[in-house]
């Protein structure tokens, strides 16, 4: 019986920590692209965070003070970290960078579908409205997020080691 398998424990930690870090990193990359593109389109660099903050403030997120930006950032990073952990849990840590990139893009497409058609219409109608105004860009932003997850298996291996070398219990 495997009453206490140290490898299982370290794998869980690696999945959680590695997934969190890679999710946060991917979320920051996605946010940076969103902020820069919003600014370039003349919509203002604060628009992405304010739209995310509509989860908390509703449409007023677009006009309340700087606190909306903090809330938007927190919500975005929290969701990114959760999605990173889920991705790490679903992906083998033996995956190569190329495989991780492909899985990441596939994961991004799934997240995009769930966010667009299930989560946002209920939780953040203003963000949903803007996704319909720039649908292609909204999808591209998710691909950026998915692509940026490619380091997840590397992080997991760095944190938790690999199965090879772990003595079976």
């Amino acid at each position, binding site marked *: 019986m495997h009453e206490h398998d140290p490898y299982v424990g370290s794998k869980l930690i690696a999945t959680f920590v590695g997934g969190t870090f890679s999710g946060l990193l991917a979320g920051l990359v996605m946010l940076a692209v969103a902020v820069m593109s919003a600014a370039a389109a003349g*919509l*203002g660099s604060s628009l992405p965070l304010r739209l995310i903050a509509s989860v908390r403030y509703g449409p007023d997120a677009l*006009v309340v*003070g700087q606190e909306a930006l903090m809330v938007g950032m927190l919500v975005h990073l929290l969701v990114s970290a959760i999605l990173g952990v889920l991705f790490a849990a679903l992906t083998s840590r033996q995956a190569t960078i190329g495989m991780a990139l492909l899985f990441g893009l596939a994961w991004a497409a799934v997240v995009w579908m769930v966010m667009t058609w299930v989560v946002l219409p209920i939780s953040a109608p203003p963000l949903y*409205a803007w996704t319909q105004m720039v649908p292609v860009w909204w999808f591209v932003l998710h691909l950026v997020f998915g692509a940026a997850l490619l380091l997840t298996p590397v992080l997991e291996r760095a944190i938790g080691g690999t199965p090879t070398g772990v003595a079976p219990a």
Partner: protein
Amino acid sequence: MALPSPALLLALLQVQPAMAVDPVPDPAGETTAPVMDAQAHRLPPREVALRTLHKDNQTQMALANLALQRSEQPMVRRYARRLLRDHRFADRRTAALADRLDVSLEVLPEGGPELIHMQSMLVGLQDLEGEAFDEAFVQRVVQSHHQQILRLARLRNELEDGAVRQLVNAWLPILDIHLQIGRTLLVPRPIS
């Protein structure tokens, strides 16, 4: 009593669309000079929609610019900035689509009804300051957004599937967000 001849009825029917008006209530709730809708010229629905979008964007940008000059209230200024940015973005989209479909957006001839509509939105506002200005500004934005939503929703039913309908469909919820924010701003807040 003699009934009007079919020729006279036909003439009246033909004249009526050219006289079609879109009454625009002023902020006090009274009607101002009626504004002729582009529909009156029997344009294809997609042209009417694009011109309506353009006309409204121009009006909202003018209102927002005025608010950025006059208002000192941070929420109102942020609202005006949001309106300006969103409507400018939408107007660029509208212009690009009109260009692609070879539709002219030249609907603001000097002294024309659309220009009068825009001026009617601004009239009186320029004389106001402080809270009176803020309130009048938000009221006009709310009323004009409400009208535009109704107008576009009506137009949408006449549009065939295509890029113009997509634009109208995508833009309507954003107009609704502007409307909701405006309504929130009009609610008196407790002094803190």
